[in-house]
């Protein structure tokens, strides 16, 4: 638990027209850990992710990645730093094939983006990488299907594949299991865990499913109304009084 800090926010705030969505959040994420963020809907988890990945700019505060201030970097830079991010609602290219979706993701960091005189299929390294990733998430049989034709669960897998393709160090996963059939959930979580372990990656996860969160995370941050309510290991969180009254409530115990 004493590995170096990879992601850090300092007094991060975001207002939307008078509504404070993220309120003075200070978080330290350590390298090679599984860090979950939980909290009721509207607690500002997705907004917090958007701030980390640079999709929106904070009203005040700083985001520091590997000791470097990336607060005001444009959004397309984050992946170049090594931060991959998935979305709560599948965010893919609906009218391109599954293969093309992942290929575009793996090509992004290469130096061949403006070689418009050569066919895209001439760059074998990206295609190979694409096949590797597709195999990893279990979509290699559907490579030539249009992404919009995929069932919901497979779209989530494709989304995961798209952020794995450039091989980032940090994965920001915004409810990767949202809308998935529940028998598929453990499979996907196992996959994520495996990727984290095998590749020395840091995973940050927003998730509603408490069973999942409690079983996989090393560290949990509870957000409530934009602010951090509590932070700690799963055991600490489960025992925390504040968390129980504000979020888990009596129902949590019944649910287990």
């Amino acid at each position, binding site marked *: 638990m004493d590995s170096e800090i990879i992601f850090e926010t300092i007094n991060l705030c975001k207002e939307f*027209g*008078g*509504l404070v969505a993220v309120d003075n959040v200070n978080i330290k994420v350590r390298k090679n850990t599984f860090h979950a963020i939980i909290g*009721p*809907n*509207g607690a500002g988890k997705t907004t917090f992710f958007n701030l980390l990945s640079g999709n929106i700019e904070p009203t005040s505060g700083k985001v520091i990645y590997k000791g470097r201030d990336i607060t005001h970097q444009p959004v397309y830079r984050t992946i170049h730093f090594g931060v991959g991010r998935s979305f709560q609602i599948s965010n893919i290219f609906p009218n391109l094939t599954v293969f093309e979706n992942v290929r575009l993701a793996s090509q992004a960091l290469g130096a061949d983006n403006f070689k418009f005189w050569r066919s895209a299929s001439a760059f074998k390294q990206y295609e190979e990488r694409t096949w590797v990733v597709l195999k990893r998430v279990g979509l290699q049989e559907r490579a030539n299907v249009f992404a919009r034709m995929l069932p*919901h*669960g497979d779209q989530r897998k494709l989304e995961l594949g798209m952020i794995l393709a450039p091989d980032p160090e940090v994965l920001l996963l915004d409810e990767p299991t949202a*809308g*998935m*059939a*529940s*028998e598929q959930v453990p499979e996907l979580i196992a996959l994520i865990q495996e990727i984290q372990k095998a590749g020395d990656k840091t995973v940050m996860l927003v998730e*509603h499913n408490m*069973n999942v969160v409690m079983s996989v995370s090393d560290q949990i941050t509870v957000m*409530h109304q934009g602010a951090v309510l509590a932070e700690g290991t799963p055991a600490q969180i489960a025992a925390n009084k504040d968390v129980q*009254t*504000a*979020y*888990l*409530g*009596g*129902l*949590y115990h*019944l*649910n287990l």
Partner: protein
Amino acid sequence: MDYILDVQDIHTFIGQYHILQGVSVRVPRGSITALLGRNGAGKTTTLKSILGLTPPRQGKIMFEGNEIQGMLSFNIASLGIGFVPENRSIFRDLSVEENLKIAERKKGDYAGKKGFIFTLFPDLKRLINLSGINLSGGQQQMLAIARALVADNCLLLIDEPSEGLAPVLIEQLMKAIQQLSAYSTVVLVEQNFLVASQLAEYYVIIEEGRSVKEGKMKDLTNDKATIQHYLGAA
């Protein structure tokens, strides 16, 4: 038994996906019926099909003894069906009062129901002039239910009322739903089995677009095997 709503073997397509492949739901008058099932099983689509928002291609839907499938959704709604959607769909630029007033089907609906709504959700009275965008998740959920109560609806379709709410709020909401079930029949889609089992009298389990099991909630709570099999967790 006297069924207010009788859905008979409906098939619904969204685009080219065969989402509902034979769902039958019978809702006894004056009860709370819960639609259970996993995420993506087709519960929300069932509600939307009843309301004509995603019209079924096959099958029959009887409401108060009349066939309503194929009618336009505003016609169906004005027969007396209130809908509380999953994402609440509060009109952001309208004030709370306007959000309620817009649900009027005849003049004076809002004035008549005001008292009832505010005893059910005292919070809303305080927020009456706020615009929808400024409400928190729980307040939005209350407003969405209140909105469905403004018109004379004898059937309420409530989709995932507890989703994303803090447990404290869920308990509050459960009380409200229990209270209003004295006035109208409720069909409830609920992920949280605990909430559903405490509220509902009857249940229907939907699995992969088909209704597979129905019965009394009392029997289900004792039937651990079924719960484990269809709902995964308990």
